[in-house]
Each structure stands twice: as structure tokens, then as C-alpha cells.
């Protein structure tokens, strides 16, 4: 028998790879939020005015708000599938610590939903005539901000997964809570545009990320145990 016991880390890796596999197998869950991100951003020049001065003024806010909404939209695939086929119950019943498994699951989900947003953002900044030196702060901000948004969105998703039609409710619950990330992220780009140093804000976004990383899984676990009753 080639049975060998997996430590906590081994089983975390299994949950992580399973999450990537599931997302990779249904590409819709990855591509749709990205397409939403690109289309929504390109609506603003169409809706507003295509003069670069105007666009660059609103670019940071537009990119950040649509990134926030794209992350919310991609939350659906985090628990919905596992809830319907019962795997989420098995996760709750497993002797392994739920806290770390949720972290692994959210990390896997972020890798294929949040990270692509970060990589795509320079393209959209280009479309919105954002000056060259604002690309770095935009990407750093998104790199630190999207995992926090994913974690907060996961809390909302865990609360509403049992409701079936939780989609809109998720936004009402989660958007107010993600405002600090939006404020600091978009603020970073503006301070960079004004030529001021933005390292302080990187620290703030990092602090929010660490806070979310440590506290969110507790709330997600409690919410899941409530929803799966």
C-alpha cells in the first residue's frame, strides 16, 4: 500500500490544485470577469468624452471600480459549484483545519481571477490615456488590493451561498466593506500622478491585505457553517 500521510501542507496543496483545476476546466469563470473588466472600462470613453485630458483624470477611479466589480462577479464560482455538488460539506466535515483550506481555496481562485486583472490593467490604462509613470502604482495597488477584495468577497459569498439567488445581495453586503481598498488604491495612482511619493499607501494596502488574510478566513468559516445547515 503506497499510503503516506499528508501533513496539513500537503492537503492544502491538494485543495489549491483542485481549485485551479476546476477553474481551468470551466474557462467561463475566468474569462467572463476579464471580459467584463475590459468592456466596462471601454464604456467610459464611449459614454463620456474621449479627450485624453478628461480620461486620464478619471482613469484611476474607473480602472479600480471596474476591477472591484470584476472581482465581485468572479466570486460566484468560488463556493457555488462546491455547494451544489456537496463537496463543500465534505470540506466542513474534514478533520483538517478549515481556516487554512479556505485560504488555499481563495488563493487558488485569486490566482486565476485576480492576477489576470492585474496583468491586464496596463492595457486598460493605455486605453484611458493614463500617463506612463502611473502604471507602476496602478499595478502594485491592484496586486495588493485584489486579494483583499477576493477575501472580503468570499465572506459575502459564504454568507449568501445557501440562498440560491444571492447575487445582488452579495454586492450590497460586500461593496461598502471594500471601500477602503478602493480609496487607497485609486488614491495611490493620483498621488503618483501628482508626483508625490506613494510608498505610504503601499504600506497601507499591505496592512489591509494582512488584516484580511488573517481575519477573513475566520468569518468565511463561520459563515459557511451557518449557510450549510
Amino acid at each position, binding site marked *: 500500500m503506497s499510503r503516506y500521510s499528508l501533513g496539513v501542507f500537503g492537503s492544502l496543496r491538494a485543495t489549491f490544485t483542485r481549485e485551479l483545476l476546476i477553474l481551468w476546466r470551466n474557462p467561463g469563470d475566468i474569462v467572463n470577469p476579464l471580459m467584463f473588466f475590459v468592456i466596462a472600462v471601454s464604456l467610459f470613453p464611449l459614454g463620456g468624452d474621449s479627450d485624453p485630458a478628461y480620461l486620464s483624470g478619471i482613469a484611476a477611479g474607473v480602472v479600480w471600480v471596474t476591477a472591484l466589480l470584476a472581482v465581485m462577479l468572479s466570486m460566484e464560482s468560488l463556493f457555488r459549484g462546491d455547494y451544489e455538488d456537496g463537496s463543500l460539506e465534505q470540506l466542513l466535515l474534514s478533520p483538517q483545519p478549515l481556516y487554512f483550506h479556505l485560504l488555499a481555496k481563495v488563493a487558488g481562485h485569486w490566482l486565476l481571477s485576480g492576477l489576470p486583472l492585474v496583468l491586464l490593467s496596463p492595457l486598460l490604462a493605455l486605453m484611458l490615456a493614463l500617463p506612463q509613470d502611473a502604471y507602476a502604482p496602478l499595478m502594485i495597488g491592484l496586486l495588493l488590493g485584489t486579494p483583499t477584495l477576493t477575501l472580503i468577497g468570499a465572506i459575502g459569498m459564504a454568507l*449568501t451561498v445557501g440562498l440560491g439567488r444571492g447575487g445582488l445581495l452579495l454586492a*450590497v*453586503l460586500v461593496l*461598502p466593506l471594500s471601500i477602503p481598498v478602493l480609496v*487607497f488604491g485609486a488614491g495611490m495612482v493620483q498621488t503618483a500622478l501628482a508626483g508625490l511619493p506613494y510608498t505610504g499607501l503601499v504600506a497601507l494596502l499591505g496592512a489591509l491585505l494582512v488584516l484580511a488574510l488573517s*481575519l477573513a478566513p475566520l468569518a468565511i468559516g*463561520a459563515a459557511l457553517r*451557518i449557510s450549510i445547515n
Partner: protein
Amino acid sequence: MWQWLYKLGSPRYFYDMTTVFLPWLRGVTYFLLIVGLVWGLGFAPPDYQMKDNYRIIYIHVPTALGAMWVYAMMAAMAAMHMIWNLKLADMVAKSCAWVGASYCAVGLVTGSFWGKPTWGVYWIWDAKLTAMLILFFIYIGVIALRSAFDSETSGSKAASVLTLVGVVNLPIIYYAAQWWNTLHQPPSDLGGSATGANPPEIWIPVFFTGFGLIGLVFLLVILRTRNEILWRERRAQWVQDLVQGEPRRA
């Protein structure tokens, strides 16, 4: 001490106790409010700058503050509900949500009416008003989530989790609003102009309306909690007798 706290935890004891002192609370609260409002509207000297428009402050400041500490009370109740599974704490939290949201709405509307003469526009993204707007959204989120569940028990547990997540977020939101505001506009201190060179008599009515509105919070929360107790303990015998005893009206 624990014995007393445990006794307070039982809905029936809470109901009987509030039946006794509710009239007193009602009396004190109405007295404070009436004195405060009449004094503030009619007898306080006008502000040297904004003249009589500043009289809105007598209800704006207490309601805005009320919205914040009612959320803190709701979070404390949610924590008690999650940790010790106290059903009564959850009933109080549910009532707090409605009262807090109402105070927040009044704070926002009075703030914007007060701001119109000073800033020339109904709404400006001032740090305090923005933070209060976000607090209002969180209240709505908690109420919406609680009513989205079919079973009461999971609805109340979910709402408690969201309240606790919200209470962690609130200081961050306040700081973010402050920082964000300094980025865009010079700080327009909302309460500043009123406290300028003004005679101290201006502040006496706020004392009355302040405590009056605190009393009103408890009054409204207790009224709602009593209904909640009757509904959730409907199969208990003491509620059945109470229903029998209730005089038939309309």
C-alpha cells in the same frame, strides 16, 4: 454577577422588567426631547454667522453620534449571540439595526440640509458625511442579509457575522474617508463654524436633545425587542397567557 446577567438573558425576565420601567423611560425621554427642542428652536441665541440655520445641529449631532454607538451596541449584541448563543442578544441586535439605520438616515438628511446654506449644495463629499453614508450602507446590508434567510436562526447568525465583520471595517472606513478627503478638498469642518465665537448658551439645548435622543434609542430598541420576544417565544406558556389576557382592540 453572572447570575444576574444570566437572569437578564432570559427573554421573559427582560419582558417583565421592561414592562415595569418602560413608562419611566418614556416619560424622561419625552421630557428631555421637548425641553431640548423648544429651547433649541425658540430660545437659544442665533449663530453669528449662519443665524438660525444652525438650529439643525441640535438634532444632527446627536443622531449622527447615535448611528455610530448604536452600531457598536449592535456589534456587542452580535458577539454575545455568537459566543454564548444568547437568543435575547440577537433580538436586541435585530432591533438595533432598524434604530441605527433610522438615526443614520436622519443624521445624513439633517447634515445635508444644514450644509446647503454653507456649501451651496445639498451634498458634498465631506469625510464625516461620507463615512456616515457608508455606515448607512452597512446597516442596510445587515438588515437585507437577515431577512434573506428563510430560517430565522441562520438569518440571525449570518447577520451577526456580517455585523462583526462590519465593526472591524468601520474604523478603517473612517480613516480612509478622512485621508481621502484631505486628498481632494481642504477640510471643511462641519461642526467648526458653530463652535466659533458663540455664547455658551448655544450648547445647553444640545445637552437636553443629546440625552433625550439617547433615551429614545433605548425606548425604540426595547419596543421592537418586546415584539421580537413575543414572536420568538410564541409557543411558551407565558406568552399564551399574555395573548389571552391582552384586551381585544379593533
